[in-house]
């Protein structure tokens, strides 16, 4: 069975995000004065093959995030797993 995994990685909320701050400044300068805050993160997609059980996929992806995809010292992550047809 194949699974599509969508992962979002963001700087933790209490950590200043210089990139988000710069983008917010840009949007405000374009006239979007109501943009109060911007956070920039990372988005990744994984295809997991040869795994039948969704629980196993969840466990594996969580481990991948902890070990490599995110840096738990400064980043939080969330992910969704979806079964692929065929």
């Amino acid at each position, binding site marked *: 069975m194949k699974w599509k995994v969508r992962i979002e990685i963001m700087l933790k909320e209490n950590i200043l995000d210089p990139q988000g701050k710069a983008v917010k400044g840009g949007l405000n300068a374009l006239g979007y004065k109501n943009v109060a805050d911007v956070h920039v993160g990372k988005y990744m997609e994984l295809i997991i093959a040869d795994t039948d059980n969704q629980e196993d996929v969840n466990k594996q992806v969580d481990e991948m995030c902890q070990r*490599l995809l995110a840096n738990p010292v400064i980043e939080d992550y969330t992910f969704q797993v979806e079964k692929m047809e065929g």
Partner: protein
Amino acid sequence: MKFAVITFPGSNCDRDVYHVTKEVLEQPTDMIWYNDKLDLSSYDCVILPGGFSYGDYLRAGAIARFSPLMESVTGYAKDGGLVLGICNGFQILLEAGLLPGAMKVNDSLKFVCKYTKLKVINAGTPFTNRYSKGEILNIPVAHREGNYYIDDEGLAELIANNQIVVKYLDDEENPNGSVVNIAGICNKEGNVFGLMPHPERCAESILGDGSKDGYELFASILDYVNKRGEKCG
């Protein structure tokens, strides 16, 4: 004494470090390829140089830490071996968990390449014993991800254990926005040291401002290893 300089795909300061330890300090030095997994115990100090290992993909140092040789480096560090990480080498040590904390993009979002004034906070490490506490050094930085972050609890621990080794002189000198102007830290045991500035770029009077402030760092390692040898002998 014998140095090892590790080359990762994307390292670009490895030759500079090699030049300093081999030609300036006149010590035997081997360059080691990241893909080898070998016993490092015959070396007195292992240096992770600056550069952009694996293109800085994902996060600076994130992928290099999984290269085969890093397993050897981790074992070597745990056994008390001296490990020095410069710039990207520092980032790799953080990602590998050999030093606490993490790197963010510079507050300015810019790559900063310039001389910075540093203040020596801990002159008692194997890497800084030729400096004196409070001494001001002039050593260049060159990085985009040098904004050192650690939470309050971790910072308190760093301070309590005297693990902050060098700081940027003040807020104005700080090129990246790091927590309390940290430029370099060591582990609790003091045998692993990482810093963002590049001592290998100012180890000869012919280079830069001619201060040779960087030379003293490498000479500190040599002094430490020689003294340790005398004690053991």
